[in-house]
């Protein structure tokens, strides 16, 4: 079946000028990601994974090369246009959660919809509640961010990334701060979202995690070294069941 392309990269370069030197963080990266793929991006530290993800998330613009998100060319867009694009088409999940302090789960999840004037207060709340239920936090709606565990905070962050029904969910080391068991709980969630048809791009250091995705792109020194379709996708629920439950 021919799925529609969500992300199309052609010869993406990103140079940083640091003092008199130029750092080539990305040196011509090209690939296409279709709707419904669960892609892990791997690579050593400094290989350009975060730089690539920032470009994919329209937080940064490439020095050269073409990037089309859901068919829209991004490179020539203004700052405001990119902000709107992020708001409608992208969901971010960060390593350090980045929740608003002293703010309830619902309010945190509502945040992206606050910047979309087409959505009223009522719909905003309904969608936030639905997203929180989806990540298994239906009973923690009004808990504040500082009253939650790391795993719960990351679930809130995932709900926030889901709430605007984005074309793609981008996660940078989303399990980096979590213990093994909680990491797999989050991974189960990502696999479920993928099963529902969502497109996910997941940056990770952990080769084990790559086994749970459909495709792995490996970067090395700013270049694409390997792009491999995973034929033997593992089930995170199975792995989770095999992990010992922490003793009280």
């Amino acid at each position: 079946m021919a799925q529609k392309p969500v992300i199309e990269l052609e010869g993406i370069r990103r140079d940083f000028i640091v003092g008199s030197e130029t750092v080539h963080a990305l040196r011509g990266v090209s690939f296409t990601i279709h709707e419904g793929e669960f892609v892990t991006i791997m690579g050593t530290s400094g290989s350009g994974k975060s730089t690539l993800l920032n470009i994919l998330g329209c937080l940064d613009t490439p020095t050269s090369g073409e990037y089309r998100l859901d068919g829209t060319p991004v490179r020539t867009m203004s700052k405001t246009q990119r902000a709107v694009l992020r708001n409608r088409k992208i969901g971010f999940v960060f390593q350090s959660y980045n929740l608003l302090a002293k703010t309830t789960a619902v309010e945190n999840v509502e945040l992206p919809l606050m910047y979309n004037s087409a959505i009223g207060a009522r719909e905003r709340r309904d969608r936030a509640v639905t997203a929180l239920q989806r990540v298994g936090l239906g009973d923690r709606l009004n808990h504040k961010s500082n009253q939650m565990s790391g795993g719960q905070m990351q679930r809130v962050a995932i709900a926030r990334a889901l709430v605007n029904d984005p074309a793609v969910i981008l996660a940078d080391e989303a399990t980096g701060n979590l213990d093994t068991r909680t990491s797999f709980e989050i991974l189960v969630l990502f696999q479920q979202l993928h099963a529902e048809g969502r497109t996910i791009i997941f940056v990770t250091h952990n080769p084990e995690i790559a086994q749970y995705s459909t495709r792995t792109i490996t970067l090395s020194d700013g270049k694409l070294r390997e792009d491999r379709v995973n034929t033997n996708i593992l089930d995170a629920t199975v792995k989770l069941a095999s992990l010992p439950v922490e003793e009280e």
Partner: protein
Amino acid sequence: MNITNLFKIAMKAIGANKMRSFLTMLGIIIGVSSVIIMLALGHGAKETIKQDIQETDPGTIMIIPGPDYETLEGDWLPEYSQTLKPADYQSILEQNKYLKSLSPMVFSDGQLVCGNNNHSTTVYGVNDQYPAISGQVVEKGSIFTEEEIHSSAKVCVIGKSIVDKLYDKDADPIGTVIRINNIPVAVVGVLKSKGKDITGRDQDDLVLMPYTTVMKRMNPWQNYYNMIYATAENEKMIDLAMKDVTEILRANHKIKEGDMQDFNVRSLEQAVSMVDSVMGALTLLLSCIAGISLLVGGIGIMNIMYVSVTERTREIGLRMSVGARTRDIMNQFLIEAILISVTGGLIGVLIGASIAYFARFILMNFTEHHFLIAVEPWTVLLAFAICTITGVFFGWYPAKKAANLDPIDALRYE
């Protein structure tokens, strides 16, 4: 993002740092309350002076001896004070076309003795028309008659304070004889009390006598009047009357075109508008000084907004990553700054108005001053306008800084 949500965010941010926000507001509170108090005092002073003057006939014209002091070249000569002669009064009395009343005035110090009591005051030599001109009412007895003026009779009308000083409680001064500068004078009337004026001067501490008596028996050397008071038929005729009087006196004094005039005709109207402009300037000056604290308060806001932006760098990065536009971030911080300054303004207005009205209450009830301190509605509006402008002005740069942050750097900020 819409305004309501921006307000909620701003409120939350302010609420999260209550003490800090309050201290920042304090600058604005002090600034606004002092401006409000200054304007209320200024307004009060103006109104009080106006009220004091209002009792006087609004058509009052004063004829003053000597040239205009402001345009005078050379020194003030002693004879300048003696240019209004009885003949001038006579001419005005006979020739004037627009005057309702006319009274000469001569002053004398008076040493009053009545029984064992004595008191020194100013004696005003006037005619029977004077009380109407100056807005004084003879409460008991009556003003001296034309006949008594003509005969330089030893009669007087006294103010309330004189009664209090010289007589026992409940004593009736009418018909009694007091000694003024050793001359026995019969009291024929008592004036109604006017209280103190804005400067605290007792307006009831005076004696009125026929001008003829003062000139003949108290100041026998005096052959001139210290002033002549008149009132125009009505307020519209003030200018005509002034011109008329000026012409009569110029003819009398044989002053030619272009020569320096040795007398001055002024209207109360002019005096009132002068008081008005002097008080206005004074109020403006004091308000500007008070306004400086508002400026300091504004700088305080700017400072705290910079702190707020730095503290919330990651939050700004997050908001940008989920789709906040430059404008949204800008508005968020601007509204926070405005909210601080306008809330400070609101508290400042309340405190300022409370102090102003409390001062008025104290002055009215514990002293005899009737000082009409009042907060005018426009000053409140002005205070809020200034606070909004202060918020925008001093919030602008911090907000701009926040809005121009790079989302990636902001998200990474530790």
